[in-house]
């Protein structure tokens, strides 16, 4: 895929990520549908498969899931300099795209977090701050359990993919009750998958 981007287009790209940053409550992944609407459907800067594989690849890599946004920017840059066929000469624009996307998605939310968290810490004796933290605690714990549940349900129905569900259940018990290193579990999961056992 090849396209031409003007400096104004790059600014629009930055602006889109800046505007989504403060809406990303619950993580950057919650804004993915809007990124798809803008980048793929409206501007045609990315193909559908580039969009999907950016998300899949970032989940296979270590680190926070928001790295998929760097890959979206990277792919826009690569497309703007002749696509994968252009080889390493496409990399500078790829890196620029990744940098613009990350800057846009991070700058507003990190600034707000920094200011708000500092305020909350300095005023931690206030009744309202204590009530907020105490009230939110059980909800936050339930959100973690829900995330695990939702991730499992994406693996397929329990009847069809019972081996995957069993793997999830065993991992849950091991992590909850033992101090086994998390990397061993991930390696085992990857291996079982590659061998076709789950």
């Amino acid at each position, binding site marked *: 895929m090849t396209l031409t981007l003007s400096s104004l287009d790059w600014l629009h790209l930055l602006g889109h990520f800046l505007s989504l940053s403060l809406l990303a409550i619950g993580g950057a992944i919650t804004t993915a549908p809007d990124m798809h609407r803008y980048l793929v459907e409206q501007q045609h800067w990315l193909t559908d498969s580039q969009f999907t594989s950016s998300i899949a690849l970032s989940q296979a890599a270590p680190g*926070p899931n928001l790295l998929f946004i760097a890959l979206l920017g990277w792919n826009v840059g690569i497309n703007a300099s002749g696509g994968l066929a252009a080889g390493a000469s496409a990399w500078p624009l790829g890196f620029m795209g990744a940098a613009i996307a990350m800057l846009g998605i991070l700058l507003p939310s990190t600034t707000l977090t920094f200011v708000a968290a500092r305020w909350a810490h300095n005023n931690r004796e206030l009744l309202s701050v204590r009530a907020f933290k105490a009230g*939110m605690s059980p909800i936050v714990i339930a959100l973690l359990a829900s995330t*695990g549940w939702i991730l499992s349900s994406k693996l397929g129905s329990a009847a069809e993919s019972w081996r995957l569900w069993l793997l999830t259940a065993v991992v849950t018990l091991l992590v909850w009750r033992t101090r086994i290193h998390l990397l061993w579990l991930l390696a085992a999961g990857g291996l079982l998958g590659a061998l076709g056992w789950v």
Partner: protein
Amino acid sequence: MRPASKSDLFWSFSWLALQGFGGVVAVVQRELVEKKQWLTREEFVEEWAVAQILPGPNVVNLSLMIGDRYFGVQGALLALAGMLFFPLLIVMAMVIAFSGISDLPQVQAALRGMGAVAAGLITATGLKLITAVKLNPMGKKMCWLLAALTFVAIAVLRWPLIWVLLGIGGMACIIAYQAILRIQARSSGEGAP
């Protein structure tokens, strides 16, 4: 316990980010709460509540908050850099190296296996943190009720997070507010006849 130095902070966050496949929160809990003990479970849950309600990726928010706590603005930036720098290098290297093979069935199957493990890691993190509500002013029963309501709303009914946080979360804050007031009234009333 606290980070020994700014470089300890940076490398600790780099190390935990590099272990975080399919979600970093399980690793943050394991490394910072259980191993390094920079935070207690109660503190972790409280900080996580703040990180969750603010926009932006939760683990990024949490790293900023912890870094700022120990070394101010520099600490916040160092923790953020640790969280992002090496993972970003790796994911860029992967996109360059694997642009041809990511569609292979074996690669897809391995990713599915790792996805199942990641789901277990996050569920277990939630289970471990349950003990953090022991000291909660609302009491255990109310905490369980609120947690169950939240789980049903998010995992079963799939309501949008924002409405759950505003609705159930708002209600929980009011209940906690009244519970703290009651506890204060009781403890100040103890001396009186």
